[in-house]
C-alpha cells in the first residue's frame, strides 16, 4: 500500500466520489419516496389522489381505516376479503370498508379495528369474520405472521413514518403509486379495501378446485386443551370483548363464522367439533354482553358448504357465494331463517 502524498490524491477523489454518490443516491431515493408517500400516511406529503398499492394489506389499510368516507368496517382474514362493500352498503344502509387481511392474526385484526374505531367515534356497523384464528386455545395466541406488520401505521403519531420510508418495499410501492399518479399504470386495488384475489369467475375450473379440496383435511384450531371444554382458555375472547365494547352505543355488531367447505368441518361429537362448539359458546357469551350484537354461523353443513363448486379451495369461496353471504347476513339481521346459516345470538 502506497504512502506517498502524490498517490493519495486519486484516493481522495475516489473516497469523496464514492461517499457523495452514496449520499446523493440515498437522498434522492428518500426524497422521492416521502414525496410520493406510498401508503398515504405521512403528515407533510403533497396532495395527490393516492390509491392503495401495497400488496401487503397491513400497509395499505390503516389509511383506509382512518378515511371519513366510511362509517362501517369488515374485519377478518382472506376468507372475508371477498365480501364487497358495494354489495354490503345497500343491504345495511352503510358505507363499508373491507379491512380483512390475508392470514391476519387476531392481534392484527384488533389493531386495524382500533385505527378504524378511533377515527370513527360514530361508527355504524362492525362485521367480524370468525375463523380458526379466533378459536385457538391455551394461554396465548399468535401475534404476527411472517408478513411485515408496520406497527407505526397503527399508532396516532404518524411522524415516525419518515424513518420508515428507507426500504425496498416503500420504494417499490412509491414507484407503483407514482406510475398510477402519472397515468402510466392502472390501479389494481379498490378504494374501499375490496380487491378480488381470485381469478375471474369465468375461468373457474371445478376439477382443479376439487383437486385442491381433496388435499384439505379437517380444520381444528391449535392450542393447549386439558379437562372439560368449559375449562379451556380461549385467549382471543378478551380481544373480541374489547372490540365490541369499543363500538359506539347503538351501532350494529355482526359476528359470523365463515363457511368452510364441508371437508374442513369437524364431525359432530368429535374432539375437533368440541373446540369449535365451545368457541361458539364463548363468542355468544361475549355477544350477549353487548347490545345489538348478532352471531351468525355459516360454518356448518349447508347448501353453501356441501357444494364443492362453491369453492376455490377449502376456505375461499367464489364471488357469487360472497354476495350470497352478504344477503344472508342482511336477512339474518332482519330475523329471517335460511339453511345457509344458523343465528346463534339472539336465540
Amino acid at each position, binding site marked *: *500500500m*502506497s*504512502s*506517498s*502524498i502524490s*498517490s*493519495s*490524491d*486519486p*484516493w*481522495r*477523489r*475516489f*473516497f469523496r*466520489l*464514492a*461517499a*457523495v*454518490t*452514496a*449520499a446523493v*443516491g*440515498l437522498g434522492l*431515493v428518500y426524497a422521492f419516496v416521502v414525496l410520493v408517500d406510498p401508503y398515504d400516511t405521512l403528515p407533510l406529503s403533497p396532495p395527490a389522489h393516492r390509491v392503495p398499492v401495497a*400488496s*401487503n394489506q397491513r400497509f395499505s389499510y390503516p389509511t383506509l381505516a382512518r378515511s371519513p368516507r366510511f362509517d362501517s368496517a369488515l374485519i377478518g382474514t382472506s376468507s372475508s376479503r371477498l365480501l364487497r362493500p358495494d354489495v354490503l352498503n345497500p343491504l345495511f344502509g352503510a358505507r363499508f370498508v373491507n379491512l380483512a387481511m*390475508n*392470514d391476519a392474526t387476531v392481534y392484527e385484526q384488533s389493531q386495524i379495528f382500533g385505527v378504524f374505531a378511533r377515527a370513527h367515534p360514530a361508527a355504524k356497523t362492525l362485521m367480524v369474520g370468525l375463523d380458526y384464528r379466533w378459536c385457538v386455545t391455551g394461554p396465548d395466541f399468535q401475534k404476527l405472521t411472517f*408478513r*411485515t406488520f408496520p406497527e407505526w401505521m397503527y399508532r396516532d403519531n404518524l411522524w415516525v413514518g419518515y424513518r420508515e420510508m*428507507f*426500504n*425496498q*418495499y*416503500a*420504494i*417499490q410501492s412509491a414507484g407503483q403509486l407514482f406510475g398510477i399518479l402519472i397515468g402510466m399504470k392502472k390501479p389494481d386495488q379498490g378504494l374501499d379495501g375490496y380487491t378480488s*384475489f*381470485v*381469478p375471474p369467475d369465468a375461468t373457474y375450473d371445478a376439477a382443479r378446485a376439487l383437486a*385442491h379440496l381433496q388435499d384439505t383435511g379437517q380444520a381444528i384450531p391449535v392450542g393447549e386443551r386439558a379437562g372439560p371444554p368449559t375449562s379451556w382458555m380461549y385467549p382471543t375472547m378478551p380481544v373480541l370483548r374489547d372490540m365490541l365494547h369499543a363500538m359506539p352505543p347503538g351501532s350494529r355488531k355482526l359476528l359470523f363464522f365463515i363457511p368452510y367447505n364441508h371437508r374442513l368441518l369437524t364431525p359432530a361429537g368429535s374432539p375437533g367439533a368440541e373446540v369449535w362448539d365451545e368457541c361458539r359458546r364463548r363468542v355468544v357469551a361475549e355477544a350477549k354482553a353487548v347490545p345489538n350484537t348478532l352471531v351468525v354461523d355459516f360454518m356448518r353443513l349447508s347448501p353453501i358448504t356441501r357444494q364443492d363448486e362453491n369453492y*376455490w*379451495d377449502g376456505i*375461499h369461496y367464489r364471488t357469487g357465494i360472497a354476495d350470497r353471504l352478504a344477503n344472508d347476513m342482511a336477512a339474518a339481521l332482519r330475523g329471517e331463517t335460511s339453511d345457509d346459516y344458523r343465528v346463534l345470538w339472539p336465540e
Partner: protein
Amino acid sequence: MLFNSQFFICVFLPVVLGLYYAFAANRVARQTVVVLASLGFYGWWDIRFVPLLMGLTLANWLFAQWFGRTRASWVPLLGVALNLAVLGLFKYADFLRGTAFGLAGSDWQPWHLILPLGISFFVFQKISYLMDLRRGDRHIYGFLDFCMFVSFFPQLIAGPLVRHNEIIHQFREDPRGPAMWENLGRGFVLFILGVAKKVLIADTLALLADPLFSKATGSPLSLAESWTAAGAYTLQIYFDFSGYSDMAIGLGMMFGLRLPINFDAPYRSLSVRDFWRRWHMTLSRFLRDYLYIPLGGSRCGPIRQAVNVVLTMLLGGLWHGANWTFVVWGGLHGAALAVNHVWEQRGPRLPSPIAWALTMVFVMACWVLFRAPDFTAAGSVLASMAGGHGIGHIALDRDSQRALVLGALIAVAGPTSHAFALTRLRPSPWLAVPSGIGLAYLVLLIGGRLPNVFIYFQF
C-alpha cells in the same frame, strides 16, 4: 448496534468519523472520541452492560498496573481468573448447572442470564494481554490507550481478536498522514464488501437454511433437502462471519488503524489443518498461543500432541457456545487435526481435488452439528445426508439459487474481499461511483427486503 444497520451507516459512522478527524491533531481528543463512541455503540444494544464492559476494562488495567509495579507472576493469573469467572458466569452458568443437575438427575431452573454482547471476544482479548505480560511483555499502557484497545467498536462485538501489540502502537499515529485518503477509500470499499457478503448472501441463505433445520427437528429431511441445508449453512456462516470481519477491518482502516485479517478463503482448504489456518485466524492463533503451546504443543510425543490438539479444539468449541454440540464440534475438528497431522507424516499425498472434497465434506458435516439445536436434530440431518431418508427433491426460489451459486463461486474461486480491497483496488472513478451506488442499494436492502408476495398458487 449492528454495522449492517441504517443508523450505523447513515448516522453513527459519518458522525464519529467526522469528529475523529476533526480532533485528529490531538491524540487524547481523538482517542476520547473513539472510546465514547464505542461505549455508545455498545450501550445502544443494552446500556446496562456498559458498566460491565467498563468495570472489566478498569479491573484489567489495574491488574496490568499492579503487575508493572510488582512483577509478581501471579497477578496476571488473578486477572485471567477474574475474566474467566465473568465469562463463566454469563455464558456458561446455565450450561454447567444444567449438565451437573442433569447428571444428578435433579430438577433445576435456569438463571437465564443475559449474555453480554461480544463478551467472548473482549474477555479473550484481555486474557491475551495479561498472559503476554506474564510471559515477559513489558507493555504497560495508559488508561486511555487500554480503553481504546479493548473497546474500539469495529472489533468490540465479534473481533477480529486483536492483540495489544499489533494495535496500541498505532494509536500514536496521526490518522491524517499521507495514506489517509487511501485508508479511507480502501476501508470504505472493504466495508461495503462486508455488508454485501452479509446482506446479499448470508441473510438470503439464512432464509433457506433456517426453515430446513427447523423442519429437521420435527421430521426427517430428504437427501436433497439435507444437502441443501448443509450447503446453505456452510456458505451462510462463512459469508456472515467473514462479512462482519471485513466490515470491522474496513472500519478500522477508515480510522487509520490496521486490524488483522480473519479469513483467507477457508473453503479452498485442502486439509483440516489448512482450514484452521484460514478460518477465524485470530481465534486460531489465540488457541494456539494460549492453549495449545502451553499444553505442550508439538514439543512432546505424537500421542500427547494429539491429546493437546483435541483438548484445545474441545475448548475452542465450547468458546463458540454453551452447548455440548459445540464441544463435540470442536472435538471432531481436534480429532481431524490429529489425524491430519499423522497423515501428513505417514500417509500418501492425496490429489488436490480429492483432498479438497474430503475436507469440505468433513467441514460441512461438522457445520450441521454446529447449526443444529441438539444431537438428535444433527443426527437426523446427517442421516439424511447419507441417504437414510430418501432422495426427495427441493424447489429453490431464484434468490436462493443465486445466493447459493454466487456464494459457492466466490468462496471457492473468487478473490477474497481483502485481497480485492487492500491490494487489487485502484482509485478509479469508475469504481468509486459503483461503490457508492452499491452502498446506497445495500442500505435500502437493510431497511427491508421486498417480501415474498403471498400468492394463492393453488388457484
